[in-house]
C-alpha cells in the first residue's frame, strides 16, 4: 500500500500531543495514587504505561485504515461486539457483584467499553445510509434496536452507568444529525414519562446510589462515604494543592477507587485549584480541537465519527468530574485518557485514532 504524502502532511500532531500529554499526567497521577498500594505483579502505573502504548498501536491501526472502510464494515463490527457482550454474560468474570470482564489470554477486557466506540461507528454508518429518509416508524424502530440491544446487555451486567452512557452517546448523535421538532417533543415527553418508571427496575444498590447522591450524609460510612471523601480530598487541595505524593486523603487511602473513578480527586488534592484549571484547559483544548476536526470533516460519515468520538470524550470528562465533585451520582465512568483502566484507555485511543483518521483525510475525496 502506497502512503499518500498528503496524509503525512495533514497528520494531526497537535491532537496526538494533547492526548499523550493527558495520558502521561494520568500515569503520574496513578503513580501517586498507587505507589504505596500493594498489588500483585506489575505496579499500576507501569501497567497503565503499557496500556497507553497498546492504545497507541491500536490508534495507528484506526488512523491507518481509511475511516470509510471502517464505516463500511460497521455492521460486522457491531455484530462482533454484541457477540463479545454475549460472551461476557456467559463467561465473564464477576467482580463486585457484576459481570463486566472478559479474560482472554491473561488480559481482562471490558467489551462494554468497546461498545461505546462501536455504537458511534454504526450510527455513523446508519445515518450516512439513511440521511434522506427522515424518521418514520421503521427507522425509529431500527435506531431503537441498534442502541437497545447493547443497552440491555450492558445494563444487565449490571453496569447501569455504562448503559446510560450508551444512551447519552446515541441521543447526542441523533440530535446532532437532526430531529424534527414533533419527534423531539414526543421523545422528550416520552422519556420524562418513562424515567420515573425506571425506578422500579433499578437494583437496590442503584437506588441507594441515587438517594445518596441527593444527600451524601444520609449514609456517611456506606455509599455516601465515597463522595464525601472525594469532596474532602478535592476541597482540601485548596489553591496550590498539597503537592505531588503528599495528598493525605490519597496516601492514607481515605479516598476510595483512587486510581480509577476518583483519579481526578487525587489530582485535585495534590495540585490544587491551579493544577485543576490547567488540566481542565488541556481537556477543553482536546474537545475544541475535536470539534474543529468535526467541522472540517469532508463528508457525513467523517463528521459523524468525529462528533461521536468528541462526545464520547466530552461526556466522559463531564460526567466523571461532575461525579467526583458531587454534581452527579456515583457512576463508573472513567476520566478519558486519565483514569487507570486498560479497556477504557485502548478504546479511547482507538477513538482518538478515528478522529485523526477523519482529520488527515479531510482533503481526500473518496474515490
Amino acid at each position, binding site marked *: 500500500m502506497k502512503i499518500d504524502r498528503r496524509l503525512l502532511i495533514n497528520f494531526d500532531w497537535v491532537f496526538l500531543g494533547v492526548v499523550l500529554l493527558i495520558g502521561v499526567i494520568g500515569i503520574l497521577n496513578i503513580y501517586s495514587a498507587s505507589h504505596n498500594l500493594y498489588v500483585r505483579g506489575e505496579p499500576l502505573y507501569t501497567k497503565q504505561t503499557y496500556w497507553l502504548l497498546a492504545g497507541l498501536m491500536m490508534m495507528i491501526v484506526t488512523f491507518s485504515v481509511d475511516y470509510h472502510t471502517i464505516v463500511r464494515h460497521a455492521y460486522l463490527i457491531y455484530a462482533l461486539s454484541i457477540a463479545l457482550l454475549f460472551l461476557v454474560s456467559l463467561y465473564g468474570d464477576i467482580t463486585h457483584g457484576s459481570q463486566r470482564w472478559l479474560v482472554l489470554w491473561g488480559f481482562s477486557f471490558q467489551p462494554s467499553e468497546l461498545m461505546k466506540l462501536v455504537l458511534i461507528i454504526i450510527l455513523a454508518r446508519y445515518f450516512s445510509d439513511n440521511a434522506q429518509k427522515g424518521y418514520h416508524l421503521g427507522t425509529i424502530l431500527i435506531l431503537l434496536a441498534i442502541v437497545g440491544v447493547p443497552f440491555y446487555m450492558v445494563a444487565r451486567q449490571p453496569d447501569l452507568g455504562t448503559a446510560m452512557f450508551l444512551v447519552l452517546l446515541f441521543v447526542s448523535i441523533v440530535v446532532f444529525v437532526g430531529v424534527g421538532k414533533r419527534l423531539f417533543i414526543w421523545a422528550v415527553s416520552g422519556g420524562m414519562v418513562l424515567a420515573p418508571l425506571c425506578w422500579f427496575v433499578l437494583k437496590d444498590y442503584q437506588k441507594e446510589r441515587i438517594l445518596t447522591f441527593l444527600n451524601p450524609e444520609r449514609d456517611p460510612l456506606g455509599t455516601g462515604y465515597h463522595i464525601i471523601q472525594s469532596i474532602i480530598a478535592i476541597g482540601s487541595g485548596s489553591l496550590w494543592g498539597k503537592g505531588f505524593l503528599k495528598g493525605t486523603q490519597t496516601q492514607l487511602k481515605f479516598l476510595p477507587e483512587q486510581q480509577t473513578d476518583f483519579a481526578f480527586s487525587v489530582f485535585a488534592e495534590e495540585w*490544587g485549584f491551579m493544577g485543576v484549571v490547567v488540566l*481542565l484547559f488541556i481537556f477543553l483544548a482536546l474537545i475544541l480541537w475535536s470539534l474543529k476536526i468535526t467541522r472540517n470533516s469532508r463528508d457525513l460519515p467523517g463528521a459523524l465519527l468525529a462528533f461521536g468520538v468528541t462526545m464520547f470524550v466530552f461526556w466522559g470528562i463531564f460526567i466523571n468530574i461532575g461525579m467526583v465533585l458531587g454534581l452527579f451520582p456515583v457512576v463508573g465512568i472513567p476520566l478519558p485518557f486519565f483514569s487507570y483502566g486498560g479497556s477504557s484507555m485502548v478504546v479511547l485511543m482507538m477513538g482518538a485514532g478515528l478522529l485523526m483518521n477523519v482529520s488527515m483525510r479531510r482533503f481526500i475525496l473518496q474515490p
Partner: protein
Amino acid sequence: MFGNRDRLDNYDPKKFRKKIRVVTWLVLCAFFVLIARMWYLQIVRGDTLRQRSENNRIRIQEIKPLRGLIVDTHGDILVDNQPSFDISIIPEIAKDVVGIEDRLRKLCDWKEGGLFFEQSLLTVGKPFVPVRVARNIGRDKLAVVETNSLDLPGVIVDVVPVREYIYGKMMAHILGYVGEISAFELEGSAPATYRPDDIVGKYGIEKYLDGPLKGKSGGEQVEVDVAGRRLNVLGRIDPTSGYRIVLNIDSDLQKVCWDAFREKAGTVIVMDPRTGAIMAMVSRPSFDPNLFNRGISAEDWKELTTNPLCPLQDRAISGQYPPGSTYKMIVAVAALEEGLITEETEISCDGTYQMGNRTFRCWKKRGHGTVDLHRAIVESCDVYFYHLGEMLGVDKLAEYARRLGFGSRTGISLPGEKAGLVPTKEWKLRRFKEPWQKGETTSLSIGQGFALVTPLQLLRAYCALANGGTLYRPRLVKRIETEDGQTIGEFPPESEGSIPVSRENIDIVKHALWGAVNEPHGTGWALKRKEKDVCGKTGTAQVISLPEDDEDQKDEVPYRFKDHALFVCFAPYAAPTVAVAVVVEHGGHGGSAAAPIARRVIDGYFNLQQKRHVR
C-alpha cells in the same frame, strides 16, 4: 462502496457548522460549571475541607495519667498502682477471629464468658483497632498467652495500671475503691473534667479526693490511615500523675485495731486528742477493695450488697447508735456548768426512779446507795443521771450535746458521713406531731431513747474532754504532695471552738473517767493497766428494752436484739495522747465486750510508741 453514492455530494457542512457552534458553547458552559464548582470546593470551602482532611488523618489519643498513691503517716504505701493485663485482638491481623478466640479459650482454660467478644465490632470497618476481649487476666494466663504468642496472631497484651490496696479489707472503708465512671456521675460532674471511660473514686478517700488523685491526662497526636492503623506520632503531651495523699493513719496501729476487733460487726477509731488526727479507723465487717479493680463480678457485688451485716457501711462515720452510758458525760458537764450540781452533790440510788407512773431502773438492781458525781460516773449509776436529766430538761441537754459536736457531721474527709440525732421538744413535735414526754428525758439522760450518735462524734467529744476543751475536726488527711514529694496542701489541726465547759468541771469529769477504769467497781475495770492510766467510759445501748426479770436470759436473746457495747477512752490521764472509741454491735455489755478491745488497742498504741522511741 456502500450506500447511496451521491450522499457525498449531498453533504452540507454549513448545516453542521451551526450545530457545532452551539455544541462548542455548550461544552464551554459545561467546563465553566466544572470550574465554578471546583472554585467553590477548593477556594471557598478549601479551609474547611482541609480541616476535615486533617481530622480524617489525625487522631488525638488520650494517655491516662497514673492515679496518685495513698500513703500512711510514716510514708508506708497503702494504695499502689500495679500493672494489670488486658487481652485485645486486632481483627485485621488475626484474620480468623473466631478461631483465635477458641484457641485462647482452650489455652487459658477460660470458661464461657471469661472472654467476651463483641462480634458487631468486627463490622465497624476499622480492622486495625484492637478489640478488648478480656480484662485483668492473671499472671498465669499472661504467661500462657505470651509463650503461645506465635500461635495467636493479632492477640496483643495491654498493660493497664490498676489500684492495689495493700492492706485489703483492713482499710477498705478509709481508702474506698475505684471504678469506671457511671453515666450519672459523668452527668453530675463539671464539663471536661471526666471522660466516659475514666476510672474514678467511688468510695472513701478515693472518692473524696478524686480530684487531686486522678491527675491530668496527656495526649498523643497520631496520624492514622483509613484502616485506623497508627503511622506516625506527630506530638505528645505527657500525662501528669495524680497527687500523693498522706494520711494520718498509722498502718501498724490500724493493724492492731483490725486484729483487736474480732467480733462480727462494729468499729474501732483511734484519734489523737491533741490534734484530731485519725490514727486508725476500722469498721467490721469489711470488704476487699481489690475486688473492684476493673469491675467487680456480679456474684461478689451481690454478696456484698445482700449481706445483712452490710460490709460496705463504714460504721465509724455512718453507724448511728444510741450512745448509752457514754452520754452521761454530756449530762454531767451540762449539770455542772448550769450550776445545778457540784462535785459533792449526792443522790441516793435504791435501784429505781419514779417518773410519773413509770418506773425507771438502775442497771444495778439493788441500787448504789448514796453516790456523788464521781462515784455515779465510776459505777455508771443510772438513777443519779435520771435526776440530773430531770433537772436539766431535754432542750438544755440538747444544747450541750450540740456544742459537744453531736447532731451534726464532723466534717471528716470521707463521703457518706451521718449526722446522728440530738432530740429536742421541737424535733419531736415536728417529727411525730406529739409533745415531748418527761420520761423520754429520763431515757435520754442515760443515752437511750431517741439520741443517736456516730462513733466518730462520740470520740471527738471525749477528745475535747481529754485535751481540756477544744473540739477538733477529725482529720484523716495529713498532706497532699506531688509525685516527687513537693507539698501541695497541708491540713493542720482544725479547731472548731471550745466546748462550753470550764477547766475545773472538765477535770472533775476526767478524774471520774479515770476512776471508771482504775478504781474498784469501775465499769471499765477491764482496761486497768499499771503503767499508763487510762480514762474511759462504758456504754451499753439497748436495741430493745427487755422485761427486767428476764435479766438472766439475756444470753439467749437473738443476735439482732442484743445490746450494742460501747467504750470510749483516752490515755494517759495526765496528758492524753491517744483516744479510742469502740462499738461492738450487739456485743452486750460495754465493759465486757468493748473495753477489752480498747485495751488491746491502747496497749498496741503504747507498744508501737515505745518501739519507735527505741528505734
